[in-house]
């Protein structure tokens, strides 16, 4: 065979088959993600942090094509920097989400990435926005990625409006753990980012620190 192309994953695009979650609580927002990046059947990076900062108190969670998602996050990071310098104050979460939505909508045919935006600002407190396919909607919690389909029911059942900080963190970690154990494209470690008026807290849950359920 003259046309040897090598194994398929050499030519496959690198995707973050993923579970990403963002949940609002009283006074802030918790974002969570797994850490697996795959190219076809092989894992390219098992420790990628998919929670990317857009500004001091605004983060986004990446899913879909790794290259597209990274590029959108970097572009919006730059645009928010310029915007906040022009305003002279921290930008709103809504502005960040709108910038992400603009890119996702204008290039929706060419891109295959979905970003969830979550953060805290002085006007609206903790907020979560979903920007799938270029829509913009504010939700109390948002899920994304291939692993999210396994845990919609769990999150619908367990979400409590007005929950506190630690309860929400525990909810996000439990949901991530369930999704990672069911979805082949999600796994590795769990990253958590908690944003409130006082600042940002980043946490990593290694494999043996994740909560276990009935079959583990």
């Amino acid at each position, binding site marked *: 065979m*003259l046309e*040897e*192309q*090598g194994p398929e994953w050499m030519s496959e695009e*690198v995707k973050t088959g993923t579970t990403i979650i963002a949940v609002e609580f009283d006074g802030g927002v918790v974002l969570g993600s797994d850490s697996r*990046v795959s190219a076809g059947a092989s894992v390219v990076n098992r420790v990628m942090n998919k929670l990317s900062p857009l500004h001091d108190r605004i983060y986004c969670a990446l899913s879909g094509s790794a*290259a597209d998602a990274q590029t959108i996050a970097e572009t919006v990071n730059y645009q928010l920097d310029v915007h906040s310098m022009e305003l002279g104050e921290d930008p709103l979460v809504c502005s960040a989400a709108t910038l992400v939505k603009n890119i996702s909508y204008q290039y929706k045919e060419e891109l295959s990435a979905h970003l969830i935006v979550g953060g805290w600002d002085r006007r609206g407190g903790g907020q979560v926005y979903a920007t799938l396919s270029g829509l913009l909607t504010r939700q109390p919690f948002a899920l994304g990625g291939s692993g999210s389909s396994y845990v919609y029911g769990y999150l619908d059942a367990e979400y409590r409006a007005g929950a506190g900080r630690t309860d929400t963190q525990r909810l996000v970690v439990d949901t991530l753990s369930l999704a990672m154990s069911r979805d082949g494209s999600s796994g590795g470690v769990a990253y958590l980012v908690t944003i409130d008026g006082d600042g940002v807290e980043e946490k990593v849950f290694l494999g043996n620190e994740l909560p276990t359920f009935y079959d583990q």
Partner: protein
Amino acid sequence: MEIDSISSGSPASPSPLGAQPMQLNGCRSFRSMLGSPDISLANNAYWGIPSRRWDANAWKRQSSSAEQLPVLMSLFGGEMSLLRSPLQPPSPGFSFDLTERNAVLGRLLEGSPPPRPVKTGTTISGMVFRDGVVLGADTRATSGDVVADKMCAKIHRISANMYCCGAGTAADTQKTTDLLASNLALFSLNSQRAPRVLMAASILQDTLYRYGGQIGAHLILGGVDYSGAHLYTVGPYGSVDKLPFVSMGSGSMAALGILEDRYKPNMEVEEAKVLVRDSVQAGIMGDLGSGSNVDLCVITAQAVDYIRPYQESQYTNGRNRKYKYPPGTTALLSEKVVPLRMELVTEAVQRMETH
């Protein structure tokens, strides 16, 4: 000369690109005859840089094809974007020059499969150790089932403090790293600063992302700058990962197993060299596309040690590669001397002005 004889067999086609499909097909068989993956005629076409011989044929054919102008503009647009200096702001938006060109080619070729660039099966790996980074690579370049080059160099110099291993399409990795190296050299001269590894990774990411995966370069970039030792991997679609150890290429799964098992942070240099050598060796033994020798490159803040080869293949056939035979090796059976008598017909002297 060969190009003319190939294109004379092409079907009568009004478009100037009627020459190109035949040329690419001709080049493919031409290339497989020679077995070298580096004949860059076809690969130049993939980069949008019109090669000189293609141009000569194209401009000979007059055509009023509506497809001529946008494709040619996309080719020149692709060339200009590649040569753009890093000091100018990057052009906004995505660059779909090559996808348009590919679509036009696909329509023209319709029926026959489009030409595919040659990939080199490879094992490349790298890791961060206490004082810097170690990069390793095998040295086999394949063209289909034949080993085209037993001693090819896959670790490319980017700057004094940065080296880059490349897997995937040989021409793409060489060209991408060459362009990166020259752009960074210009940047250093303009700013009086040594470039950071992060800058090189960002430039690679920008370039590869703009071409949407059309450039088949899977790269491992490692180096030491003022902020420490860094190791990045850049995929062909433009995704970047910063990791303590990484491997790419068709032998990467074999190499990664070794690295996952024995990697520890802050290893000593000799232990790190042995680990990278072992990981590349696993690829050489376990992957058909990798083989021959192991090259290593050890980069620290003080010096760069490019060890080529670090380990030689034990499967050579002992050929000297010296073909100088002493006089008398071939038996002389008979000898006949015929003097050539030449008549002096005319003689002309021309003075040269030399100062």
